[in-house]
């Protein structure tokens, strides 16, 4: 930044966001947003609100979510929480001033949930459960062996041995209650304190009833009848039912978070006087990075230039631009909304950056909040219904046989299982997301899967989505022949901008060349580079042409004419025919001339009535609102597509390196072709099928097993086998269903 700019003081407010500004708009982003007619209006959000992304250990079933949410809501400064039970991750929206994470962590600790910094290596949560599980199986095994003595005829006549065996069995049951039963009792107690209806409440009640019943029968029968072997086996099996999902959650977390798509994000690094394009994963602490207007800051970095203007939209949800001065830390996730590039020194490598979490999604949408609330309601109703059925079962049986009524009620409490909905569905979603990630498709929010599964019409923006811009062969030769400083200046200019034309030219010049000039983006006019002595280079549009000029004060000479070719993406034709064959209606909404849109449409075989050119951003949104209803997917790549993203039922973009865009879509992809679109829809349909299966399974399973248990024909031991078996079955079914889904074959 030059001294004049550095010393400039705000004289007025930005017309769009209201930030202090020396001009009508504080930044190019606000100017563009304002030109879009307020489509990107500033959201009213209280200051000091911040998202925290944490790992949550100890999640064993989706019902745990309700308990953690209730505890969170009781904390001062708590706003919103999103928990992913399949990944064991939580995103918290909190008031920075009032919320104390350590207090929240201490409140969760007695419940067995551990909350910590995301991605922090930790001792596996399942280890403590495995310990309980192993001990309880040992106790159960010994209890059974002792019980054999009674089953095979040990009688009260052998008084010493009879009593020894009976009381040893009793001791083993008490040990099992302390080691294994305490796990359920503690969870239930914490849930009751938090007034949340956790599935461990009926399980804890069944533990108490089973132990109490076995003890009562033992003492009332003169130490002869023993159910302690049943009780210890039942505790061990129930722990197994908790341990298996906990392991799967851990495995998911380890594998699903491996790739977040950000690793290959291109960044510019200074190597001496030269610039080099590297992948974000190559950044090491101490690197000097250059961020062009529109560039995303991938790691925390200290500003080296006099000042910079960045949006923290992804971090705080606040689109307002924030100024930074030399020496200040620019956080990962910020992006340059100023009119010139800035240099900053990386403080960390990508692995320590919070950017992957930011990219994964931010605030929950209304439908996601509704979904979370509906699960909390389902969980409450489910637990209350199970308790009521158990009570009615015992009451009905008590008229005939109290002992049998007790075991029937215990069986009801044990065998009910909401895992199909609570665990199977999130698991299917994570598997779908993981498979898409491995194909380079990144889904940003949960509603995208539902919306994608319902898509019937796919509408594309043309330039940048269906087609790519590149310089013609003649232009490339012309740029190669530029003499003296002209070529390094042009390279510096195009490396300092993310404009599509600059990106196209970048491929035709040596991008390691650099000239000592100050580059700025002039919205609507192009790029300017000042070399000193009044010499100004421009890359601009003039008379329908794109030209590279030099202005030495007296006159402006054209150094090169940039002739741009628009080519259809490599697999566009084959993918268009595949999508048509799958029954999708395809269309184009473009700001380009109608004849060019018609030409592309004819080439790809799109129906003419859905291919419309010369549309303003708002016109695209209106067209989608009129024609799209709830079944339209819109794909675009520019800031001007944002209104259309919001109007469509679902949206996607290939523009991963322009953070304005993917931050406002439901998914993004990094492949050069169009096949990720078909991939995303196929995955979403497979997920929708898994969801239908889960609801059906949950209904059929619970109706059948609860009826059998209430009828008194299922012992608690069988119930303790059936319940975890159903959990494992649902997990296995979801994994296999998603695995066998018809994924991309190419």
């Amino acid at each position: 930044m030059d001294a004049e700019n550095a010393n400039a003081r705000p004289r007025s407010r930005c017309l769009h966001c209201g930030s202090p500004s020396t001009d009508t708009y504080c930044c190019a982003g606000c100017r563009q947003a304002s030109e879009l007619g307020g489509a990107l209006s500033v959201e009213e959000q209280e200051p000091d609100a911040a998202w925290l992304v944490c790992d949550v250990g100890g999640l064993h079933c989706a019902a745990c979510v309700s308990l953690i949410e209730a505890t969170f809501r009781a904390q001062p400064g708590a706003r919103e929480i999103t928990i992913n039970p399949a990944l064991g991750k939580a995103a918290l929206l909190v008031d920075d001033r009032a919320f104390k994470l350590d207090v929240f962590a201490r409140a969760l600790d007695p419940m067995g949930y551990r909350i910590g910094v995301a991605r922090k290596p930790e001792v596996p949560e399942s280890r403590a459960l495995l310990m309980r599980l192993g001990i309880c199986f040992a106790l159960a095994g010994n209890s059974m062996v002792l019980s054999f003595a009674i089953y095979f005829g040990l009688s009260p006549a052998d008084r010493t041995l009879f009593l020894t065996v009976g009381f040893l069995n009793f001791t083993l049951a008490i040990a099992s209650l302390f080691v294994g039963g305490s796990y359920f009792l503690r969870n239930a107690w914490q849930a009751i304190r938090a007034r949340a209806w956790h599935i461990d409440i009926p399980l804890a009640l069944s533990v108490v009833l089973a132990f109490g019943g076995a003890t009562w029968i033992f003492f009332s029968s003169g130490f002869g009848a023993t159910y302690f072997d049943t009780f210890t086996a039942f505790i061990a099996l129930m722990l197994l039912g908790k341990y298996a999902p906990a392991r799967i959650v851990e495995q998911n977390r380890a594998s699903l978070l491996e790739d977040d798509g950000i690793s290959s994000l291109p960044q510019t690094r200074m190597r001496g006087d030269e610039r080099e394009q590297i992948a974000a994963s190559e950044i090491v602490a101490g690197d000097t990075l250059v961020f062009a207007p529109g560039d995303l800051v991938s790691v925390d970095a200290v500003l080296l230039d006099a000042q910079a203007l960045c949006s923290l939209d992804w971090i705080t949800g606040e689109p307002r631009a924030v100024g930074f001065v030399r020496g200040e830390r620019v956080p990962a996730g910020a992006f340059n909304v100023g009119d010139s590039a800035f240099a900053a020194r990386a403080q960390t490598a990508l692995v320590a950056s919070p950017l992957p979490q930011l990219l994964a999604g931010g605030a929950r949408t209304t439908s996601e909040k509704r979904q979370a609330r509906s699960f909390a309601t389902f969980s409450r109703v489910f637990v209350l219904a199970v308790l009521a059925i158990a009570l009615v079962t015992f009451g009905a049986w008590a008229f005939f046989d109290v002992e049998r009524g007790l075991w029937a009620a215990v069986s009801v409490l044990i065998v009910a299982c909401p895992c199909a909905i609570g665990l199977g569905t999130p698991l299917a979603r994570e598997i779908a997301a993981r498979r898409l990630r491995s194909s380079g498709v990144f889904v940003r929010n949960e509603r995208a899967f539902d919306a994608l599964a319902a898509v019937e019409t796919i509408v594309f923006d043309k330039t940048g989505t269906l087609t790519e811009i590149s310089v013609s062969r003649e232009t490339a030769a012309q740029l190669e022949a530029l003499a003296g400083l002209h070529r390094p200046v042009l390279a510096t200019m195009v490396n300092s901008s993310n404009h599509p034309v600059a990106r196209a030219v970048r491929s035709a010049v040596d991008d390691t060349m650099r000239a000592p000039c100050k580059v700025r983006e002039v919205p609507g006019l192009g790029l300017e580079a000042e070399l000193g002595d009044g010499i100004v280079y421009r890359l601009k549009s003039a008379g329908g042409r794109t030209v590279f000029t030099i202005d030495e004060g007296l006159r402006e000479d054209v150094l090169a004419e940039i002739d741009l070719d628009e080519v259809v993406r490599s697999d566009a034709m084959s993918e268009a025919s595949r999508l048509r064959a799958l029954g999708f209606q395809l269309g184009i909404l473009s700001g380009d001339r109608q004849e060019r849109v018609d030409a592309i449409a004819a080439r790809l075989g799109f129906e003419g009535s859905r291919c419309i050119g010369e549309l303003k951003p708002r016109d695209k949104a209106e067209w989608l609102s009129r024609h799209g209803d709830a079944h339209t997917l819109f794909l675009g790549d520019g800031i001007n597509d944002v209104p259309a993203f919001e109007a469509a039922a679902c949206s996607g973009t290939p523009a991963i390196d322009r953070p304005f865009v993917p931050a406002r879509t439901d998914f993004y992809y990094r492949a050069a072709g169009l096949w990720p679109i078909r991939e995303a829809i196929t995955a979403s349909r497979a997920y929708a099928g898994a969801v239908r299966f889960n609801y059906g399974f949950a209904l059929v399973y619970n109706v059948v097993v609860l009826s059998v248990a209430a009828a008194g024909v299922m012992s608690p031991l069988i119930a303790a086998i059936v319940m975890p078996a159903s959990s494992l079955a649902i997990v296995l079914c979801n994994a296999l269903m998603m695995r066998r889904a018809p994924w991309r074959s190419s």
Partner: protein
Amino acid sequence: MEILLMLIFISFVFMVGAILAFVYSVKSGEADHADRLALMPFREEEKK
């Protein structure tokens, strides 16, 4: 019958010993990856 009581006592000592050994091995992390093969159906195919 006394010998049976003694055998029961000895078996309990073995059980406690086995539990202690199990606790030690779990704490050492030996069981952290014990189920890797069992969980393979839930994991992705190896990238080609």
